[in-house]
């Protein structure tokens, strides 16, 4: 039976974190041993108190590291504890945990990284704004040019990976806006990546962290990171 660790990065998620965990606990399976770990990324609200009061399994970061640093802590934990599969899921209830099994099954089928995607089939009630879709489409095409692989939902934070990638991510993971960049690094190593359709909910609490001027900075930074990763990875292979 394979052991699975679900990594839940949480920055100021006091309202939703309990819900996320209870939804994960509802997932029933006989094929996998499912654990979860919350990474409290130096929240300024009561996230830590909620975790303590409800005896949730959590790691408390003394500083705020940003989403990448928080998720990487989860991968390090998974690596030290020798988990077979690690899954990252957002702490704000956007992702439906019942798809965890689908992700794990694809890892079992021999894929190294499996992405829960909003765009492969239209299961989602999730409506992105027009500009956001244009942005994601641009990054998707940039990654296609760099790696030759077409991935549609390159910014999805709902992903599963096997032991090899856990070890890689434990040692190499970008600090902020990590998803597209880390995806390129994995693709460059000729790992097998698969995208499967999942249902995503509209955000119930909180707002997207990427808005306004930040989104321009996001696009420039991520595009730059993808190109840099593309060049350095090439050197590594030769």
């Amino acid at each position, binding site marked *: 039976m394979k052991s699975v660790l679900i990594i839940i990065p949480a920055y100021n998620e006091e309202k939703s974190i309990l819900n996320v965990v209870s939804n994960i606990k509802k997932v029933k399976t006989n094929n996998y041993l499912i654990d979860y770990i919350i*990474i409290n990324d130096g929240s300024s609200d009561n996230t830590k108190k909620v975790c303590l009061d409800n005896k949730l399994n959590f*790691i*408390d*970061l003394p500083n705020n*590291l940003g989403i990448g*640093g928080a998720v990487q*802590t989860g991968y*390090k*934990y998974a690596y030290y504890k020798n988990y077979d599969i690690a899954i990252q899921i957002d702490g704000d209830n956007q992702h439906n945990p019942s798809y965890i099994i689908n992700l794990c099954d694809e890892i079992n089928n021999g894929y190294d990284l499996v992405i829960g995607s909003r765009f492969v089939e239209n299961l989602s009630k999730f409506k992105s704004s027009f500009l956001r879709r244009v942005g994601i489409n641009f990054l998707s095409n940039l990654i296609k040019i760099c790696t030759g692989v077409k991935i549609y939902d390159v910014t999805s934070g709902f992903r599963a990976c096997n032991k090899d990638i856990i070890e890689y991510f434990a040692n190499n993971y970008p600090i902020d806006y990590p998803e597209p960049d880390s995806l390129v690094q994995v693709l460059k190593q000729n790992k097998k990546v698969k995208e499967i359709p999942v249902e995503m909910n509209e955000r119930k609490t909180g707002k997207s962290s990427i808005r306004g001027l930040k989104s321009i900075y996001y696009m420039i930074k991520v595009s730059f990171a993808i190109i840099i990763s593309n060049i350095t990875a090439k050197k590594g292979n030769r």
Partner: protein
Amino acid sequence: MTSRLIVLLIIICLFFIIYIFSNIFKRKISLQFSLMWFTYIILLMILLISIPFIGEISKFLGFEVSSNMIFFFGFVLLIIIAFSLSMFVSILQDKIKTLTQEVAILKKELNSNHEDN
């Protein structure tokens, strides 16, 4: 460049050297970084003192006034220092990230051991 300006700039440099030393004694700056600034000031002072002799060189390089050459080199060296500081900060940022993660994981292990006992 008048000799009055040269003397003024050299005096400023000397004051800066004293300031660096006082901070070394108070252990507010590491030797590694103070050496970087000493090198900067000494290079600048050498240029200042040699002003009367390098008028031809600065003309040859295309500076209309030799004081401009001093300021130009001072500016270039400052950019090198500022960039190297950005590099140091990036390395520190990465080290702090790793430390934070390891401390948090250790803290978790400690707490779970307490609960077991």
